[in-house]
């Protein structure tokens, strides 16, 4: 509980500060109002923008549904970055792992025929395995050759996106009659059920059961960290790999395990997008989620509850940003600025401490991952 309040406090303060700066940006970029000196209009723009930002994320069923839909992949891929952080690894490869997981889940999703209660879990698990194997490549490369995971995961992202592009042009995956790289549709039985499916005629409520998968994964992550030996070993390796090694932990196999887990989480993110949100795969399936996940993990300080809070916040901004764009002239790009500001405000104290090499209690709460020499 204490942890929850702490992470909420950090996030809330960062949010507040960035909304303030965001308001100034809206005013400054509202050229017409500035020119005529009409500050009342500028402020009403800010008010309307933030009002629709809130309404679009939490006000009413559709908004909540949109927030849930946005949160699901962010949370799962956020966990993928968090678990690697905990083990002292910087996983930039969530994008590639999502693609790998998404494609495996897709394949199971359109080839298998069976009842939904079997199909859906099978496809999600397939996605997790696909992502895990893909993430594991970076882990093995690091453990066996010492290749830095930042480099390998970035490269693996490119490999994955080209692989997906190629796969989507093969007859196995490409939808019949479509010239462009777009996959076959996942069969209805393998689609993650819609959360609000019990409401008739509300096809606009797109939130799906992938959210429960994400929550379950968050709980599993918490359990792993706090209740298992493996979690302890991962954390120990992350905090000080030399000490961990000295204590008899196998840091090399732990590196592989951490990347397998990370890939598994990201793979599930890909799976829930394919099986829930879209029902098919395209080259832009992973979008920017793999990179936004880094911000989510940083903001959440890699803790399970923190990652959850950060993912909900980013998901809400994504959903609210759309209605902000629809109701005002404020461009949706402001959301990207807001997210960047939030991360900056959270990271700034840690950054400053790192720059001046101040060692204090606070730094241990932040991210620890080995640098280039490590």
């Amino acid at each position, binding site marked *: 509980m204490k942890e929850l309040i702490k992470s909420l406090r950090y996030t809330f303060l960062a949010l507040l500060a960035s909304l303030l*700066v965001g308001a*100034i*940006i809206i005013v*400054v*970029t509202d*050229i*017409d109002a*500035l*020119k005529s000196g009409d500050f009342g209009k500028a402020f009403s723009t800010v008010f309307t923008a933030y009002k629709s930002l809130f309404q679009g994320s939490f006000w009413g069923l*559709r908004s909540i549904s*949109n927030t849930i*839909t*946005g949160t699901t992949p962010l949370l799962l891929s956020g966990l993928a970055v968090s678990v690697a952080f905990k083990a002292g690894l910087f996983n930039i490869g969530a*994008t590639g792992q999502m693609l790998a997981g998404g494609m495996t889940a897709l394949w199971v999703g359109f080839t298998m025929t069976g009842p939904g209660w079997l199909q859906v879990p099978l496809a999600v698990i397939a996605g997790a395995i696909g992502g895990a194997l893909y993430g594991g490549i970076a882990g093995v490369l690091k453990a066996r050759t010492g290749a830095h995971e930042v480099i390998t995961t970035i490269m693996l992202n490119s490999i994955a996106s*080209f692989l997906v*592009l190629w796969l989507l*042009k093969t007859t196995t995956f490409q939808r019949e*009659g*479509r*010239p*462009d*790289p*777009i996959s076959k549709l996942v069969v209805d039985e393998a689609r993650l059920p819609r959360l609000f499916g019990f409401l008739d005629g509300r*096809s*606009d409520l*797109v939130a799906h059961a992938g959210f429960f998968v994400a929550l379950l994964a968050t709980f599993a992550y918490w359990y792993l960290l706090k209740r298992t030996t493996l979690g302890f070993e991962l954390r120990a390796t992350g905090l000080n790999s030399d000490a961990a090694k000295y204590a008899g932990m196998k840091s090399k196999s732990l590196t592989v395990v951490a990347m397998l887990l990370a890939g598994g989480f990201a793979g599930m993110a890909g799976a829930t*997008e394919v099986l829930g*949100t*879209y*029902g*098919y795969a*395209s080259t*832009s*399936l992973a*979008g*920017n*989620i*793999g*990179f936004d996940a880094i911000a989510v993990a940083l903001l959440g300080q890699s803790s399970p509850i923190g990652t959850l809070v950060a993912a909900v916040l980013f998901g809400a901004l*994504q*959903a609210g*940003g*759309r*209605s902000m*764009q*629809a109701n005002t002239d404020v*461009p*949706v*790009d*402001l*959301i*990207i*600025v807001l997210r*960047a*500001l939030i991360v900056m405000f959270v990271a700034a104290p840690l950054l400053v401490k790192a720059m001046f090499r101040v060692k204090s209690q606070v730094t241990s709460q932040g991210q620890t991952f080995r640098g280039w020499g490590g």
Partner: protein
Amino acid sequence: MIKRKGLKSAALAIAAFSLIAGACGSDSDTATEETTAEVTEETYAALPGEGILACQVTDTGGVDDKGFNQISYKGMQDAESTLGVEIDLLESTSDADYAPNLQNFADKGCNIIVTVGFLLGDATKAAAEANPSTNYAIVDSAFDPPIANARGLVFATDQPSFMAGYLAAGMTTTGVVGTFGGINIPPVSIFMDGFAKGVAYYNEQKGATVKVLGWDTAKQDGTFAGNFQSLDDGKNIAKSQADEGADIIFPVAGPVGLGSAQFAMESGGKVKIIGVDVDMSVSNPDAAEVYIASVLKNIDAAVLAAITDTVNGVTTSDNYVGTLANGGVGVAYTAVPAELQAEVEAIGQGIADGTIKI
């Protein structure tokens, strides 16, 4: 991977930066943007589109992508000024935005919703089926099976590319011309195929032996950058084709082609470029001198045509196909000898009236 760098976002970024750095932007950058807002303040009482709301949803490229989103929006703006319709726009930041954006517009009561690119295909299909009283039009894609209130806006770009191939063959001094694409999908390869066939037609007519690099008509395969972003790829492919003797190159790869133009600039006039989609001597003024001509895909004309139909009360599932005959595609000449230009124009006429088959 964040590729959204438009005017508005640039303005936001600059504003954010100057706030944080404590530095104030100069007043001069505000002056350039003032002009845009005031133009629309005229009365459209006599115009037919009064009361019609036309809406556009972009793909993740954003409305300022210097590509099809931007050209489509130009079509929207043309409709606003010539028909008097009201227009609205929503940009998508990820694939997950498509359905909610379309939903927002359906709620808003748009009469026609224009979506841009095949990535919006499935979302547009779902929206069109859920809102049968709204017209939908999708740029660069089509629906199969057809939907009563949704149509595709597609382009016979092999026609102007054929002309460009003939033109390139007529202008090369080395006897070798090149082409390459972004990704091997039909909307791209159709340009390259038309280009190669145009060169072959020139060879047939003039008994010449001009060679085409980067596209094999028989195999229907060729050189592709594998993306639509990397200027370096465009540079490297242009360089390797130039090394093989090509002096005129036709890149069909969006921004990748800008890299080829850079290479052509550095070649000091040895290599020339044929632009694609828009008149690149205008849209890429920094490298205007390297373009001899551009193959035009007038998406704006297609969008305007679709909105005009809606204004006239027409709902159809028939695709709009841009051809040389209806002005949906064309060629813009920048630095072509008058005699050759006349020949190419005659070929264009021939294609339009069906006497020349591609």
